[in-house]
């Protein structure tokens, strides 16, 4: 039995690195600083240790050869999931380049709302340590923040000390859209967050009015989608009087048509406030199960985010055309590769196509894939790197146990070599 401290987590996206875990042979137990996201992810047991072809145990070499054979015969493979560490993504990009595949991160349809806004007008954003030390006003738009990251408030808002706030419990928290699911947002002084609730689908209208109010436009209506304009006016005024306001959202939670326009409205509002003699920043939430890692690595190796096609011999980016689910539904792909090193419940989409799964040991399938290769989990079975949600900090993941499982990179590099 060994105890390991200061363990970083690749699961929660907020880069917690203060976990204490006990390792007993292959069993991992989170002893301190776990949460509803991290604890089960660390404690997931290893079941499969053998690769399978057509449901039968085979050696890794045989499974790799079979995967290479399927890819060699393919005219348009798609690689979905893309949930792994930096080295795993490097291997994935090399395999995609060689096999002419589409690379499509499984959270891209959500992240697309951010990329479309970014690539049209840009944004002004901040990172976790700035929030922890500077943020005096937080506007949460359309997301249940503690549901997203259970320890967000504890770690980054109700921290006891901050460099620039004399009393962190005086931070103001306002929810727009969804209400919080629990009590994490209640300040240590007992103050509840203000909630201006509306339906998700009403957020475009509400955000448009809020931005208009920030810019000093006159609004004739008294309520917008059930929210009093006077309440929105108060938010607008508070954003402008805050020293370091932060507006946070989760693209994945904005589940309505053209939500990129809401991201854009919000981001442009933040820019506006920065021309009004104060500072304000956006803060996009994301980064779970390697989605920032996928976009970062795809970004530096191809210059595009992680929805790109390599079948022309060079990278092509289209945030709509190369949606792997759409391609599978339209018969535009002929082999599916699913890479998911973090989450056993994140199974590949249902398809009749030949399927190669490179995934965390313990994944259970309704229908056995043609090839299944169980891999170790970054940050448990092998060292590695993963990006935090703010996209700036790459955390160094530790190896906690000796499982003998190969890494995603080992497997994908072997398949690429076998092509």
């Amino acid at each position, binding site marked *: 039995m060994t105890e390991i401290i*200061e363990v*970083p987590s690749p699961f929660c996206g907020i*880069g917690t*690195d*203060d976990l204490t875990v006990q390792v007993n042979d292959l069993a991992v137990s989170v002893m301190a600083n776990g949460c509803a996201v991290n604890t089960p992810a660390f404690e997931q047991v290893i079941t499969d240790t053998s690769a399978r072809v057509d449901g039968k145990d085979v050696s890794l070499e045989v499974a790799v050869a079979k995967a290479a054979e399927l890819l060699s015969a393919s005219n348009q493979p798609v690689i979905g999931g893309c949930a792994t560490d930096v*080295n795993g993504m*490097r291997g994935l990009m*090399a395999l995609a*380049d*060689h096999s002419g595949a589409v690379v499509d991160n499984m959270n891209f349809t959500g992240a697309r709302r951010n*990329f479309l806004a*970014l*690539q*049209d*007008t*840009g*944004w*002004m*954003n*901040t*990172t*976790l*340590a*700035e929030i*922890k*030390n*500077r943020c005096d006003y937080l506007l949460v738009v359309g997301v249940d923040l503690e549901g997203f990251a259970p320890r967000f408030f504890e*770690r*980054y808002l109700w921290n006891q*000390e*901050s*460099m620039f706030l004399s009393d962190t419990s005086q931070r103001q928290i306002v929810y727009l859209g969804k209400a919080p699911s629990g009590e994490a947002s209640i300040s240590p002084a007992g103050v509840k967050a203000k909630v201006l609730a509306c339906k998700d689908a009403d957020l475009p209208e509400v955000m448009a009015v809020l931005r208009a109010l920030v810019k000093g436009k006159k609004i004739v209506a008294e309520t917008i989608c059930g929210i009093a304009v006077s309440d929105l006016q108060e938010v607008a005024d508070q954003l402008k009087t805050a*020293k370091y306001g932060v507006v946070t959202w989760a693209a994945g939670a904005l589940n309505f048509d053209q939500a990129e326009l809401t991201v854009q409205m919000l981001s442009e509002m933040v820019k506006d406030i920065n021309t009004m*003699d*104060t*500072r304000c*920043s956006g803060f996009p939430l994301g980064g779970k199960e390697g989605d920032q890692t996928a*976009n*970062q690595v795809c*970004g*530096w*190796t*191809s*210059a*595009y985010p992680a929805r790109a096609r*390599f079948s*022309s*011999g*060079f*990278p*092509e*980016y289209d945030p709509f055309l190369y949606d792997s689910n759409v391609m599978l539904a339209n018969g535009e792909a002929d082999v599916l590769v699913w890479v998911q090193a973090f989450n056993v419940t994140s199974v590949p989409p249902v398809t009749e196509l030949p399927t190669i799964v490179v995934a965390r040991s313990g994944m259970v399938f309704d229908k056995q894939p043609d090839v299944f290769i169980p891999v170790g989990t970054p940050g448990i079975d092998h*060292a590695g*790197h993963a990006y935090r949600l703010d*996209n*700036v*900090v*790459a*955390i*160094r993941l530790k190896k906690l146990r000796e499982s003998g499982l190969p890494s995603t990179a080992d497997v994908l590099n072997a398949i690429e070599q076998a092509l």
Partner: protein
Amino acid sequence: MLIKLTGGTVYDPASGIDGKVQTLYVQDGRFIKQPANDVKIDKEYDLKAKVLMAGAIDMHTHIGGGKGNIARMLIPEDHRKDPVHRSDITRSGCGHAMPSTFTTGYRYAEMGYTAGFEPAILPINARQAHMEMADIPILDKGGYVMLGSDDYLLRMLTAKKDQKAINDYVAWTMNAAKAIGVKVVNPGGINAFKFNQRKLDLDENNAHYGISPREILISLATAVKELGVKHPLHVHGCNLGVPGNVNTTLDTMQGIGGLPLHLTHIQFHSYGNEGDFKFSSGGAAIAEAINKTPNITADVGQILFGQTITASGDNMRQHANHGFASPDKWVSMDIECDAGCGVVPFKYRDQNFVNALQWAIGLEIFLLVDDPWRVFLTTDHPNGAPFTTYPHLIRLLMDKSFRNDMLATIHPEAQKMTTLGSIDREYSLQEIAILTRAGAAKLVGLEDRGSLAEGAWADITVYTENADREKMFEKPDYVFKDGELVVVDGKVVHTKWGTTHIVRPDWDSSVEKDLQKYFDRFMTMKVGNFKISDDEITEDGRGSLTTHSLNGVT
């Protein structure tokens, strides 16, 4: 493998060799003495009438780190203009303003470059910088870690910690971030922007800390010198791009008390505010000051016309300039009580008065600085222009009539505001070799690089003499990296992985106690998880670390 390079004309300023016909021998990656007659030569290259130089070194190029990847994400339309096909030996990618990492390596090598240094590694983002650079093939790499707007240093200065404590912190950070130098960007200004200050002059105080840029410059330049780091403090000064900033820059040079200072992309800091448009050239004044101030070196940060993207740690100035974004989109970030970044696409136009004069100012500085060992050839890639414009820039420096032909095409009012047309100087091949090889290696503090002398690593570029210097420099006949042939006729024929150049200055281990407390109280990660370990660079079997020596510390 013993290689013989026969009869080339060698330009090796590091050895004082200026255009002498020589035969060189390479074994196990390094130059060796002429072997005995009976030793078998494995491969001979007949280089008669060819020009030989060491592999070129770009001492300031944004090739690794978060702001570069933001730049990539921001401009897919720019990538679409320059898709790069994969081949049996090379990876696919995209080129132009902010190329993918693989393409960066290939294109640098295809121009005869064998090393590049990222000048703005945020300590908190250093892992990303090294991971991106680990995916740049062929080139050696390294970087300068950014300090000066980090709250930890500013707290130390406010608390009047002594120089020894500052030195320990700087040394600790260089080790943690795996750096070979230290950079400061808009000293204290990135921090001041977080407190809503929109400008910060050299003697203006940060509103929260009461510390001025000058104090930051002196403390960091002193630390770098006292630690024995060979690369002088790398300074992106105050007031980038502001008309009249020439005075700030002159004051920065004079006010540093003789400490070594490298002023980077100095073109952007050499503007007067005279004339009808209140924008004029400070190029002559800056060059004269450099000539008179031996502790100062500078790279130019030349602009060249066309579409590019600017990516800088200086989000205070980038935010101020966002109105010039073309296309109209931009990103600004505050980062981890450490620094910031600003990314603004930019299109420099020869018929725009300001852009045209910027072009002329850069060339004035190149041509008016007397000592080629103290000026360096950069475009601040991608900020002034993509690095692929270097052969064109070399022609502008080496060919007066070409330069004057170009000058005649730019905005007519800009032509009137520059002395460029009256400058006769043309750079020689030897001077180009100093700017891009020997001088750069010396400035960065690289041992055994940037030279063709016995014992040096065999990074070699072979050119065919051509009166059109752009054609000559854009397509070398051969490029060798560590003695391996990687480029033939301007195309990559073989790839390998370069090393990462670092220094490891000593520090007092007690510094980590205070840092641990600071990280636990205010940061978002544990100090132990912040430090980059050697195996993070080397564990993939491709990367390696090369540690360079320090100056004797007194």
